[in-house]
């Protein structure tokens, strides 16, 4: 029993750390982009103030029960994703609830938040929210294909579905990382990551200029502050998941910060270089070459590598 209490305590510590880290990372990127454009840019603490601002709004109208629950589901998706990912390998405090089969659970939780959000925005009754949901879910279904194929390749490669064991198998040398032992799976997964990050070219679901930010159009006040918090936690959790699966995990906080920042920069750099795909272009893209790379990674690990 005591173990569970301490585990839950450590989990909330992890949530706090990932929340702060996710917000700072977003601010850091915004600041960097501002500097590139010759601006001073936002203060580094601006995301915290924005969350507090939405939280201190004194009026909040509701569109119904599902509308109220939507942001809660979204936050539950982010918290659930983080709950089963070991943040730092080999450290009891940062191992969360990682156990056998957690990778499957994490993949489910990545989907769960989006579906909850779809229900919530659906009840808001705003046509742009419905359009955003349609675009977002179509794109998500498409990028899940290469990502799932990459994860299947990892299942075969390490013969386990526990993230902790997958990280353990990559320890010892940089050449043990999945990046080098199974590069095809990493390529497929990193392309899927671009879709997950919702930066250009895959940001059509939240296109602010044509469908005013899509699904969250009607969300405001504390609903919005919950979604802002989830955005930071979910982004952090996804980065940590990719680091664990493909880049050898982290054994310390500095390694964690450096690796997750580097993975995040992939999405930023691609986003800075490419214009936005339309939905059907994005779906065709994911179901084309990335899917073939995913299949190739499964065949490679099944028949050649072993």
């Amino acid at each position, binding site marked *: 029993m005591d173990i569970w209490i301490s585990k839950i305590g450590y989990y909330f510590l992890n949530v706090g750390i990932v929340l702060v880290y996710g917000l700072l990372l977003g601010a850091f990127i915004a600041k960097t982009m501002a500097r590139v454009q010759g601006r*001073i*840019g936002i203060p580094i603490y601006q995301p915290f*103030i924005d969350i507090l601002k939405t939280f*201190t*709004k*004194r*009026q909040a109208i509701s569109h119904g029960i599902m509308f109220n629950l939507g942001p809660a589901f979204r936050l539950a998706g982010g918290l659930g994703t983080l709950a089963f990912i070991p943040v730092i390998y080999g450290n009891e405090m940062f191992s969360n609830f990682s156990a056998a089969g957690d990778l499957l659970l994490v993949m489910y939780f990545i989907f769960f938040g989006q579906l909850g959000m779809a229900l919530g925005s659906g009840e808001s009754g705003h046509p742009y929210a419905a359009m955003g949901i349609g675009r977002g879910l179509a794109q998500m279904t498409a990028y899940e294909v290469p990502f799932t194929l990459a994860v299947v390749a990892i299942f075969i490669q390490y013969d386990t579905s526990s993230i902790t064991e997958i990280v353990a198998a990559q320890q010892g040398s940089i050449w043990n990382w999945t990046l080098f032992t199974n590069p095809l799976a990493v390529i497929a997964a990193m392309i899927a990551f671009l879709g997950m990050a919702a930066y250009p070219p895959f940001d059509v679901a939240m296109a602010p200029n044509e469908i005013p930010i899509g699904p969250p159009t009607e969300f405001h*006040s504390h609903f919005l502050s919950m979604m802002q918090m989830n955005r930071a936690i979910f982004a952090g959790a996804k980065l940590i998941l990719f680091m664990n699966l493909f880049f050898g995990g982290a054994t310390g906080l500095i390694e964690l910060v450096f690796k997750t920042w580097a993975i995040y920069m992939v999405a930023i750099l691609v986003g800075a270089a490419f214009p936005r795909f339309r939905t059907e272009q994005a779906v065709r893209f994911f179901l084309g070459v990335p899917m073939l790379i995913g299949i190739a990674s499964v065949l490679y690990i099944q028949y050649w590598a072993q």
Partner: protein
Amino acid sequence: MTDKNDYPTLANADLIDAERSLFCDARPVPYEPYPVDFVEKFANWVRANSLWVLAFGTGCGAIELNPLMTSRFDANRYGIQMRPTPRQSCVIVVAGYSSVKTLKRIIRSYEQMQGPKFVLGLGICSLNGGMYWDSYNTIKRIDQYIPIDLYVTGCMPRPEALLAGFIELKDKIKAGQCDGTNRYVKDFDWYKANQKKVIKNWDMPDYNW
């Protein structure tokens, strides 16, 4: 002015019967400040440092809003950013003249914003009509229709003036002087009567929740 308790619900008299049930008929209620003074002061500081402006160009002055986000003026560093939806915005800039047609959209957008919300009048036209003082379809004094917190006058004011206006608005919010949201609720019937006097085709509910 009619006492609020006499009419607990709005009549929505200008809607057709089939549509009346689709809209909320509750009157807007004022919001209470936080009971602890320190918390309210902190909340005001937070609100002042995160101004989300509704990206809605209501008149010719909207052209002065866009440069604020560019490298030359960089309003981002003051915590100002554009939001595409009124639900998430807290500042609406009435930029220059507003025709009767636009006023209807301004009211709809303003009422959909969640309080505390602030209004900034940009240009002399929003203050007294400016060069449109004798126009038949232009609103002369916008503060008779929605409560204004701050004016930036000129024709047209340059982006620097608008930025200075935003900074002054921040100071007013920090001092707790921007009570437009509650003023609108308190004098709701007066504002509504003024609005209905000029907008002839009022095919919307009395309050856009």
